[in-house]
């Protein structure tokens, strides 16, 4: 792009009149069958989806069993609370109306959707190695549960957020997917006692990426205003 380009230069292009159409006094009627949820209804839907997601995570962690070393607080912080906080931040950003009511800016959304899994992986890998040890099989096994943990809350949020994204629906939905992946990773951190940093980064991290991609490719079609 020419460095001298100023959007004010566009004024040199002649006007393109679009007629002097005036709207009729009576606006068109919306079909009674077409439901347009109000803010209150949308907020209820979101609360219900979040509650369902939390219940799912709690039940599944209890069913799978809590890790035996949960009493060590720094481990809980590293493996469960840190991804939970990161996921909550990502979800808050994804659902925020942003400065113009059109969601967070494109830069913020993309940076968070790509950055949050990277931050999780790096912080997990740098976390002091404890016990366990990393191998591909255990990473794949743990990740399966992470996927199961995060997928249901993601589906619930996709239902709650349908028809709400007027712009950048794929990226905002990717951010929702990443946040639910991080929630799954946090729940997994309450169950899996493998304290190897690489295991947590890869085994608990790959579902975050998969759910982010699912958010981008699938959930974005649901959340986009149609």
């Amino acid at each position, binding site marked *: *792009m*020419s460095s001298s*380009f100023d*959007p004010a*230069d*566009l*004024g*040199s*292009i*002649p*006007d*393109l*009149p*679009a*007629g002097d*159409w*005036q*709207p009729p006094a*009576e*606006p*068109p009627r*919306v079909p009674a069958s*077409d*439901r*347009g*949820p*109000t*803010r*209150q*209804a*949308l*907020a209820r839907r979101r609360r219900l989806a979040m509650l369902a997601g939390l219940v799912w995570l709690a039940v599944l962690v209890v069913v799978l069993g809590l890790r035996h070393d949960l009493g060590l607080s720094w481990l809980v912080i590293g493996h469960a609370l840190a991804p939970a906080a990161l996921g909550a931040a990502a979800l808050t950003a994804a659902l925020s*109306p*942003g*400065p*113009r*009511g*059109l*969601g967070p*800016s*494109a*830069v913020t959304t993309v940076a968070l959707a790509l950055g949050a899994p990277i931050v999780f992986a790096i912080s997990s890998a740098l976390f002091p190695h404890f016990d366990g040890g990393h191998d591909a099989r255990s990473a794949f096994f743990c990740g399966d549960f992470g996927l199961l943990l995060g997928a249901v809350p993601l589906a619930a949020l996709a239902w709650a957020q349908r*028809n*709400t*994204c*007027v*712009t*950048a629906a794929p*990226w905002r939905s990717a951010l929702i997917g990443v946040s639910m992946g991080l929630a799954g990773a946090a729940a997994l951190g309450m169950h899996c006692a493998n304290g190897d940093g690489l295991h947590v980064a890869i085994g608990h991290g790959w579902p975050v990426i998969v759910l982010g991609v699912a958010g981008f490719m699938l959930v974005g079609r649901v959340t*986009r*205003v*149609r």
Partner: protein
Amino acid sequence: MSTSDPDRGDAAMSRYADGEEAAFADVYRSVAARLKSFLVRLVRSESLADDLLQETFLRMHRARGSFARGARLLPWCYAIARNVHVDHLRHRPSQRERPAEDEDAFEGAAGPDADGEAVAVAAQMADVVSRTLARLPPNQREAFILLRYEGLSVADAAAVLGVTEGAVKLRAFHAYEALRDALGTAKKPRDGRKAPDA
């Protein structure tokens, strides 16, 4: 309600989002004309723009719960109208490079008081702009129309299109260059005809 009072449109949409059905009439009156002109410029057809306008309001109704408190109505509406246009192109891809269905949508460029030559020149320029815009990729066309004709700031246009401000500027710049070239080419033959008379 005056169409030049955006704050009242914002407030009306806010009431509509809260469930006050009667506020829809105010919302409609405050933005319908601007959305219609935006869509006419995008699709170059009055009748098609009417259809897309109707669909835009239907989607606004479906998405009303997501209209944030304190948000401005116009960028939100433009974003929905733009989605409607994108979906229209997706379902009818041959429309992308198609000539206008209703090219007289842009007649009368110089207004009723202009003299005959001015009217002819303005109409010719508008026609060149219209045809060139129709040949541009949709993302460049949208960026240019939002900045040049709808008067949005770069930041607002970026929010409407869901891209960065740099991307909006780049798209508008490419459109601007294409239009400038087309207008330059269009002026040359006319100047050429005038030269012998001078």
